[in-house]
């Protein structure tokens, strides 16, 4: 069975600090996708990144970076020089390879609060 674990329920840091959100996943599939979504207070889900299981290259997008390590089944997300606008709930998610269902399984989310 697939499972995504975000052990950090809530994180609070002061603005400009770096913060890392942890994500550990379980799957028996050899091909799968990993995602990060941001949910601001307004409630909509904002897509941040998708990673294919065959691509372990880390990625950086501005202040955001992602560290994918298959050996530890982790897909961690780091925000550098955090800003108040980064405050949101962040979800890590896992999807099986394209198939008839391709369900996405979400972690329980990490609520990130950035204090000015």
């Amino acid at each position, binding site marked *: 069975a697939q499972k995504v674990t975000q052990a950090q329920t809530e994180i609070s840091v002061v603005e400009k600090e770096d913060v890392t959100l942890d994500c550990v996943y379980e799957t028996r599939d050899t091909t799968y996708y990993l995602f990060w979504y941001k949910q601001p207070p307004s409630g909509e889900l904002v897509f941040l990144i998708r990673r294919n299981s065959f691509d372990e290259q880390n990625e950086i997008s501005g202040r955001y970076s992602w560290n994918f390590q298959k050996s530890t089944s982790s897909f961690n997300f780091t925000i550098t020089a955090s800003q108040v606008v980064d405050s949101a709930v962040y979800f890590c998610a896992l999807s099986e390879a394209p198939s008839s*269902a391709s369900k*996405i399984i979400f972690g329980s989310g990490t609520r990130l609060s950035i204090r000015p």
Partner: protein
Amino acid sequence: SQTIHQWPATLVQPVGSPLSLECTVEGTSNPNLYWYRQAAGRGLQLLFYSVGIGQISSEVPQNLSASRPQDRQFILSSKKLLLSDSGFYLCACPNEGPRYGYTFGSGTRLTVV
């Protein structure tokens, strides 16, 4: 690219009343469609998914049901709402293209009183 429309945005319903939430998709054909629920302060739970017209798979036993009467229409229903049905309901479908994830609707915030 796809667009998902969900309505209503907010809903307050009494216990025991029926429910019908609608999700429609534009910009794609024959998509997989998903209903998720987010209880207050909790994560997203997959309720139902559909791979085509009339095809519904349920992920968790519950008071809700889903239907897909048309290719781009996905409906979440209940005959009698429970307090525990309160939450934020989101409809989703996969994006087309190799780079992107899934598109979500703007959600319906349901409060059962």
